[in-house]
């Protein structure tokens, strides 16, 4: 359990709706300072909606406290300014801008220096440096994923929420993304991760939550989850996922 003093993000009884569909039905969880927490579960259980509701992209009903301040109902850019970063699943690079311009827009203000510079990003992903002047639309899926993560990091978030960062990536890139996630926490940034590849999520997370039917059905450490056959078979497709590289 995360001590209350160390709570970076605390979500309590969060509900969200798409039209008349009740998608989130009372989600509660905590992310501590410098922690990597994974949200696990099958497709369609509401993991992405949880992140969108926290970010204000989907109207949230319930309590979302970030760094001691209630952010439910605030506008997206206000939430981002408070230090929450969001890397969406569909990547959303800006197609008419170059890689360099995409990264420049990651900075919230030209007067605010953060933990990360564009050069830091180029060090971690040299591919991006080579393609600095290429339009975002011309990048491969993997490069787009790197670009979106780097763009969010340049905004200097204290907690970054990442939705399926390794989806559709080649194994070499998956490893690179894993290294970046480690580097992110080394610099004191918390991570809330949605990841389909269970092996990665279990390897890098300190704690995991399992979602089912729009609510949390399990909380524990990766080791505890690995030992809990019942939860895995009921709520996760463990057999194939756990053996992913």
């Amino acid at each position: 359990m995360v001590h209350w003093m160390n709570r970076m993000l605390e979500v309590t009884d969060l509900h969200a709706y798409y039209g008349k569909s009740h998608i989130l039905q009372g989600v509660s969880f905590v992310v501590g300072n410098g922690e990597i927490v994974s949200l696990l579960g099958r497709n369609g259980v509401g993991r992405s909606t949880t992140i969108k509701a926290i970010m204000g992209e989907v109207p949230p009903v319930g309590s979302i406290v970030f760094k001691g301040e209630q952010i439910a109902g605030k506008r997206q850019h206000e939430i981002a300014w408070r230090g929450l970063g969001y890397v969406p699943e569909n990547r959303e690079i800006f197609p008419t801008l170059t890689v360099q311009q995409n990264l420049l827009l990651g900075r919230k203000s030209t007067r605010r220096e953060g933990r990360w510079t564009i050069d830091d990003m180029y060090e971690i992903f040299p591919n991006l440096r080579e393609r600095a002047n290429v339009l975002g639309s011309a990048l491969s899926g993997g490069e787009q994923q790197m670009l979106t993560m780097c763009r969010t990091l340049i905004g200097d978030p204290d907690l970054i929420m990442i939705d399926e960062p390794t989806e559709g990536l080649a194994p070499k890139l998956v490893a690179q993304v894993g290294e970046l996630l480690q580097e992110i926490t080394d610099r004191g940034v918390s991570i809330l991760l949605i990841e389909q590849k269970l092996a990665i999520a279990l390897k890098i997370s300190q704690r995991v939550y399992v979602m089912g039917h729009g609510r949390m059905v399990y909380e524990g450490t990766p080791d505890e989850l690995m030992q809990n056959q019942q939860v895995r078979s009921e709520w996760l497709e463990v057999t194939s996922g756990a053996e992913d590289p």
Partner: protein
Amino acid sequence: MVEIVIFSTLNGLVTGLLLFMLASGLTLIFSMMGILNFAHASFYMLGAYFAYSVSLFLGFWPGLIVAPLLVGVLGALVERYGLRYVHKSGHVAELVFTFGLAFFIEELVQFAWGKETKNYQQPEILDFPLFTLFGQNFPAYKGFMIFISIAIFIGLYQVITRTRIGLIIQAAISHPNAVSSLGHNVPLIFMGAFGVGTALAGVAGVIAGPVLTTFPGMALVLGSIVFVIVVVGGLGSLTGALIASLLIGLLQSYAIALEFAVNDLLALFDISFDADHFLNDLWTLSLPQIAPVLPYLLLVLILIFRPTGLLGKRET
């Protein structure tokens, strides 16, 4: 013939660039918000009337600065306290809102300034021929219109492509949520873009008022043609709007200058009709007479053969 080509081209350029000033704002607003602003030409009219009023006390030049600023602020307020709320009810509600706004502004103009044409004059300092060719004068004021239009186009292009705010606008056009999640205030940016778009229409009104006359129907005259330009150029395409504006400007000025009639065309094939032929009115129909219809003819052809417009990506 050379004389016709030179002067028609220059006049076409003046009209085309003026139309572009209106169309650029309209297309910018459409790209960002998906709103077809029917009241856009009404802001152009307001620009002319505001400038006229300012010119009565301070002369033409202060009006060139003050009127677009006023129109821009008014546009931003319309977005902030009108369109932003209507937006939640969908595009039909937005269309009806801007349609109603156009009527409201027209009534307001008639109420405030009356129905008669205003004596809004170009500045004396520009009241001389810029050059004389083949015995014809080209007024300095038209040269000034070309200069202002090109300067605004270059300025706008530089802002959109070179500045941080321009990059944010470009990104917000396609991915408003992603831009918001990076900490940029997209609603404020949209309000600003709407203000700038309407201010551009205001500039067009200020400089067109003295030439095209300032009267309550001036929005209606240019309003429909601006929509033709946006559709012909391709919804949301700034370059498309520029090409379409120049195309329509040149098309109209050449049509007015060339005294060809259907008769002349038929004569090429040795076909002629008596003056008392019952279709004589049709045979004697000349290009200058049909010039006002040509943009709409072009619109119909574009809708049939290229529904996305010249450079647009989505169906009109």
